[in-house]
């Protein structure tokens, strides 16, 4: 190693050996992006994947995981935000929280209690709160009428409400007994934190869970895809090139694994391994161990057919050695095939992984999209229109990720396979 380093300065730079490597790389990347620009669908998939990558890498820093159980903010619909409710005469006086200085403010517990203004309170010294808080219990459904009565009687100057469900209730004046009081109320501007996707069964921000819940799934899926592709390529090309008894053994091994019912055995294995499955490498290895054979057989077939191609035959006729044939003739012709199948392996790992979690068969250490689905199903939010954001959000996140992967892979397929290429 050191001797070559010392030798280097004395030798003139060898243009034909190291520059072309960088040059080819740059060329490949340029050609790739040029092709991608013409392939709109592939571009969409690529941009989507970049988005998911950025979200996984930067998201946790930007939107911290909300693990703060807020019993008063359970199951908020998407887009919910704090609003101030005042009598119509006071509309111009109270527009923001700052306008409420020195006033008495009503809060309805269980649908936006004190935690709504906690952040706001935190900005003030403890002995000098900006306003008095009067809390009305939401229990047994009388909370809202009672709070509104308080507002009408002048007991409180303004009411801070939080859930859009309550806003709807008030604006649609459904309580006829209090019709007069309701009609005199005005919901002022929204302020405070917006729950883009609503909150879950524990009052936690679903948006933060979506942002944070993808990275570990994607990591395991990439790992599993890498493992199974690597094993498949290695064993497949070995089987095809060596031939004979090793070939037969490898093919039998692949057929054996292929006969094992993949998903059920994965479930059994996951139970068997239990909490150790928290280790992403183990989970990825497990998924890969059961999913390499299909690709392995495809790689073997591919190498077998490449071996028969004219350019390989020509190379053989020219007397070029086996290493040259494998590295220069066969592998480059298979790279796109391998890359595409890697992407498909990742999507299939995603399928199995989330399937395991959804059935409750994988230990829950990260609060991933899959865990959201699991809780969404076991806690019954799946069947309630108000709280379905908890299930629908991860459903959309998973679907989008998978679609981006597949669109990207399909366009790669088109780019590299001249027969499929668009005119």
């Amino acid at each position, binding site marked *: 190693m050191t001797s070559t380093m010392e030798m280097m300065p004395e030798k003139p730079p060898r243009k034909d050996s190291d520059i072309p490597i960088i040059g080819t790389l740059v060329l490949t990347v340029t050609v790739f992006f040029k092709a991608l620009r013409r392939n709109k669908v592939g571009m969409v998939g690529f941009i989507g994947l970049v988005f998911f990558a950025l979200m996984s890498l930067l998201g946790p820093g930007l939107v911290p995981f909300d693990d703060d159980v807020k019993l008063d903010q359970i199951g908020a619909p998407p887009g919910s935000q704090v609003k101030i409710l005042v009598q119509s005469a006071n509309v111009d006086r109270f527009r923001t929280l700052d306008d409420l200085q020195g006033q008495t403010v009503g809060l309805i517990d269980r649908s936006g209690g004190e935690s709504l203004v906690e952040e706001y309170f935190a900005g003030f010294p403890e002995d000098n709160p900006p306003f008095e808080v009067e809390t009305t219990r939401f229990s047994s459904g009388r909370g809202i009428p009672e709070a509104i009565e308080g507002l009408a009687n002048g007991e409180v100057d303004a009411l801070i409400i939080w859930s859009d469900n309550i806003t709807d209730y008030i604006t649609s004046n459904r309580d006829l007994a209090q019709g007069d009081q309701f009609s005199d109320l005005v919901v002022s501007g929204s302020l405070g934190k917006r729950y883009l996707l609503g909150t879950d069964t524990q009052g936690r921000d679903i948006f933060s869970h979506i942002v944070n819940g993808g990275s570990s799934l994607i990591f395991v899926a990439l790992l599993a895809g890498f493992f199974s592709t690597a094993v498949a390529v290695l064993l497949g090309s070995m089987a095809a090139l060596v031939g004979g008894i090793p070939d037969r053994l490898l093919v039998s091994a692949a057929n054996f694994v292929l006969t094992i019912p993949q998903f059920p055995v994965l*479930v059994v294995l996951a139970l068997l391994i239990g909490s150790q499955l928290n280790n992403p490498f183990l989970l990825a290895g497990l998924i890969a161990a059961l999913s390499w054979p299909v690709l392995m057989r495809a790689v073997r077939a591919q190498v077998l057919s490449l071996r028969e191609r004219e350019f390989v035959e020509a190379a053989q006729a020219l007397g070029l050695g086996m290493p040259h044939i494998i590295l220069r003739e066969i592998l480059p012709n298979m790279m796109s095939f391998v890359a595409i199948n890697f992407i498909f392996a990742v999507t299939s790992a995603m399928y199995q992984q989330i399937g395991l979690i959804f059935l409750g068969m994988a230990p829950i250490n990260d609060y991933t999209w899959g865990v959201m689905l699991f809780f969404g199903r076991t806690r019954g939010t799946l069947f309630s229109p108000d709280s379905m954001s908890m299930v629908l959000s991860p459903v959309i996140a998973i679907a989008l990720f998978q679609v981006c992967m597949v669109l990207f892979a399909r366009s790669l397929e088109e780019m590299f396979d001249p027969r499929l290429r668009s005119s």
Partner: protein
Amino acid sequence: MATHTPPIDTSAIEKPEFSASSITLGGMAHKIWGNYVARTLIQAVITIWLVITFIFFLVRLMPGNPVDVYIDYIINQENLSYEEAYSRAASQFQFDPDANVITQYVEYMGQLAQGDLGESITSTGTKVLDQIWRYLPWTLFSVGLGLLFSFVLGVLLGIIMAYYRNSPLDVVLSLFSSILSAVPNYIWGLAILIIFGVQLQWFAIGDFRGTYASDISVGFTPEFIFSVLKHAMLPVIVYITGALGTWTLTMRNSTISVLGEDYVNVARARGLSQARIVTAYVGRNAALPMFTLLAISIGFIIGGSVIIEELFVYKGLGSFLFRSIATRDYTSMQGVLLVIVISVVFSNLLADLLYSRLDPRVRLGEDD
């Protein structure tokens, strides 16, 4: 492997095409065709035995056996001491968790040889085979229907897309198929439940649970058939959406590569009718890999139904398997896994047979 038998008359079989290797291999295959079936059957039985042995030991390695699970349960429920709970459990179960695994294995294999899958461990007195016969038809029916619809539709769409490739129709259908194939089927299931069941309220989710309405008696009546179809509807829709995209795209790509072949050009040059080219030249060759894939996916019918049947509370073999795993009902679990393994092995056999029937270039007995 290379068993030599006297040459048999091969004149009835079409001549294999060109490639030198396929002629010699094909010729060899003809020679051993006589015991090909026997050989393949033996291979299949050995494979099944290997996998079942593997699964047997895998299952026994699982932490927590059914007796422990039950003991824990009654200790918590009835505040019994461990000894009391243990003796109760021992009297309830025919299963001895302390028995030697090898002894259990030999016993199990002996039973299997007589076609007996044993009794369920957790519900004593229930034959596993009876349970399988009870649940299997529902899974075969729902997944089979989904597979059939998606396959036929996918093959037809694929050919059409390949013929009109790069037309707006092809672009839209390709995108659509990619999206269909990308999203896991249980995600489609959840999306359908949430959007159509909960949000739009087109149907009441509760009405669709199970395999048929409980107040309808089983029989060949219109009510019963309607109820069965209604309850199978959601799973079948999900099986179709989950598989259609893949079938379509595979068929499209397969057709496109066949369209580029010389023999298609030659057929065109010879002035053969379009219909004949589509059926005899393009369709036949393009559909070849599809049948292998179809046969292979028949093997995955039960395994693939686990999540969907759990999601829709459809009482098929998939959900039965899942419940057996969750309660560690070893015998039931092994019984279902055995059924799956047998179906996988025989559908692969079927794939080979089909392939050789459809493609004269491939001869049985040839490796892979």
